[in-house]
């Protein structure tokens, strides 16, 4: 871990870049790394915390293999996003922001991803699924599970 941090210049402007690198390598920002980042970049731990909670891209909890993001923006909302979300919550038994016990799924919500015309939108591992229907939820989850050899 130290290696990732050490490769960075002692320059505060590098913070976001460094957080990205850590997020990429570990899938999340391990809390104990905050103090190491603080020492390397010479900023306070609370400041780092402020930055990393500002951006949705960074998480403090490990993420599952499959990141499911549901758009809750206005357009998607009126087109039934809450129902889609409920369905995912029910199927996976987790709340938004949580990761399933088997570490396979993480559920998240965002506000508008700029594809309103296709709403409601669900993004799974970067792939957009437009005009989602509740009955398709189960299918999408199954596909993910199959990729991991589980039924």
């Amino acid at each position, binding site marked *: 871990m130290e290696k990732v941090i050490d490769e960075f210049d002692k320059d505060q402007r590098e913070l976001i870049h460094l957080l990205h690198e850590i997020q990429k390598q570990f899938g999340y920002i391990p809390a104990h790394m905050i103090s190491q980042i603080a020492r390397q970049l010479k900023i*306070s731990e609370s400041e780092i915390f402020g930055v990393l909670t500002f951006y949705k891209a960074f998480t403090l909890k490990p993420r599952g293999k499959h990141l499911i993001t549901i758009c809750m923006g206005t357009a998607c909302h009126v087109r039934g996003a809450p129902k889609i979300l409920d369905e995912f919550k029910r199927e996976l038994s987790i709340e938004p922001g949580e990761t399933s016990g088997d570490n396979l799924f993480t559920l998240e919500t965002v506000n508008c991803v700029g594809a309103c015309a296709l709403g409601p939108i669900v993004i799974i591992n970067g792939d957009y699924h437009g005009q989602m229907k509740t009955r398709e939820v189960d299918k999408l989850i199954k596909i993910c599970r199959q990729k991991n050899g589980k039924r």
Partner: protein
Amino acid sequence: MKIIIDGKELEVEGKKTILNIAQENDIFIPSLCDHPRLAPFGGCRLCIVEIKGRKNYAPSCCTYADDGMEIKTKTPRLQRLRREILELILSEHPNACLICSEKENCDDYKSTIRKVGETTGCVLCSNNGRCELQDIVETQQIEQVKFPSFYRDFEVKKSDPFFDRNYNLCILCGRCVRICHEVRGASAIAFVNRGSQTVVGTVLDLPLLDSGCQFCGACVDVCPTGALTERAIKYEMLPEETKKSVCPLCSAGCELKIDLMGGKILGSKPSEDGAVNRGQACVKGRFIIRDLVYSPRRILKPLIRANKKLEEVSWEEALDFVTRRLKKYKGKEIALITSPQLSCEDNYLFQKFARERLKTENIGSSYSFSPLAVYHEMSQKNQLGLALNFKIRDISKAKVIFLLGEDLAVSHPLIWLEVLEAVKNGAKLIVASPNELPLNRFSSLWLQIKPGSEFHLLSFLSRILIENGGAGRLSRIEEFDSFKNSLNKLDISQVFEITGITEKELIKTARLLLEEEPAAFLFGMGLTQHPWGSQNVAALQNLALQTQAQLFPLGLENNLRGLFEVGRNYPDKGLAFNKIIQGASSGDIKALYLAGPMPYLNKAKLEFLVLQDCYINENFELADAVLPATTFAETEGTFINEEGRVQRFKKVVEPVGDAKPDWWVISQLACKMGNKGFNYKDVSGIMKEMSKVIPGFSNISYLKLENGKEIFIRDEKKRRKSFIPLKDNGPLYKTSKKYPYLLFVDYSLDYYRSLPLGRESLGLRKIRDSRWIKISPEDAKKLKLDEGESLRVESSSGSFNGFVKIIESMPKGTISTSLLWSEDSDFSAVSFFTGFFQEENALGMLPVKIKRGK
């Protein structure tokens, strides 16, 4: 340039925001996030104005005035918009009371209902009546809040010392975050999350104790709402009265505003117009003053020992008793200890009393091992006449700052703010210290030197500078050649090993020191504590000559300078502090008069001990007479701070019990022992006399001070520029198999007279407990020590107890503890004093061993 605000033509000079100009000219523009000590932010938008020729509304707090600007601050449209903005803010803030039509009468009818956990309106809020938000709402005539109300329902954070944080009341103005970052350099708090979720918080929502907070209270003072409130006054009434005083808890001497209720102190805050502190203070001045005045340890009545027991008596009896007993001893058998925390007037009377009545020159104090003493002595010995006065504000103008070994944010909080300001203006900060200090993250270079190796570091820096061609201009300065020769004699081969600093770092330091001007060198006990402290200071002064730097000696106590100026008026010196202690143990000193801190005297062979103090301490049990003295808040006089600034302080409250001012006690005794020269009615008579007999005080007058004139004590006149040839002071501290660890002392002034502040303030004890023995994680692991475990430290000259505190930044092989005079003697490193006082003005470091348990 000229601008027009609301039809009024105004002449403006310099770069100023519209809001500033309006405020200066008594034109009211509502504002919530702006603050005079902070950079413009533009967060709340309440301060919007219309500027002719501009389409949008401009926030006046971050719009700078331009020539010819025409500004309107009160158009109906602006008023409507402002009300809307305020209503938006209020929709997330308990607002029932704010808009209640009965609020005028409410105070008369409500009983005490403030002691509830949740604040749902002003009447339940500790900020009621002193709230900026309340005031602003009042000016905007808000009658209803059109938006749906929302209560954020955060848990109130109560686990930290001194203040609570209730972010349900927060309006996200950002003042706290900004003052913590911009002014204090702590950045313990930040905006966390985004959008509607935004809240002020700490890393991982940890307590402030674990987030680098200094507990300076600056955030509490700038918060315009009741979100941040001091716990001690939470349920108190509003103060009836506020008086000014000067904080006696470090050498800065912050001006404080003391809030009073029924003649008692409620709390203390930094004064915005304090010349030294400009609205800032530190944990001690902000949160501890009340505790130290009303400590249950205060001595309330005079006591004398009769039939082996201390008994309460009247002042008259006590003074007679002391007079009678003191008369039995000859001059040399008597010694006095005074304190640099007492006023100039008190200290003058002590000197006069000692010499004229007791006929002794034995008058000592902790001054003798202060940085000021070492610095001045070095300057005298080499006939340099170096300046002792400086201006704290000059530090902020430096471009290079070299800091030696002080944890400024703790030992000199106000100096730290100036250093931070310099760094923010682009100054390069170089820190030489064995342990990693929190402020190191602002440094361009941290030299992690081995403890006690400053001399080598400094002299080799001098050598590098000379070798790299800096000699030309310097060679004309006196003693250059002998200085150069002395440097050449130093053994270069071992410098990297002795200091622990690499050649690359040394060269980088030398380059940084030369790069820019002006340079400021800051040093304190960290540099002067060693037996070879005066060589250290000489080496620093040489380096300062080479780099044209100004030296800033940083003492600890508030009136160190005053005590020094009084003392130097008396050329013949008696025994110094350490010799007095030795004399007391050997029996050469038979009578001791204590008005200043002193280690536990259980081994002393004294016949008569007088204790004149505010607090019961361990020497109380040994005393033959105890005279209750007032604290600074109960008396008046002058202090001289580290800059040389004369500070007048006045009585704020009546003394507790029968306590009397120190000057009064001394003059009464003196009158009983003789009939001339001590008839003072008040302190002004003493100062008048001082200004006549002590040259340094000749320009001081109460009248001028009261009229707001800045007076600095007279400083050295005959300056001489000269190098000082250096002498290698031989090997550093040596540990041995028997005593494998090196103990050094943390210099933070956490005591007032004989009261260790942490004893009265549990909050301070949580931040820095004087019973902590700090140790590195490596050593703790090696010895299998856990945090909080009891520990015993032994040296060849004594032992004391403490508790393990594991500190990441402690260098391996060293431990440190705080220097307190009179903590519980079991827990006081001062019990080592014979070991510490290797020389007259050095405490040094000690090889010790450590053992688990008591």
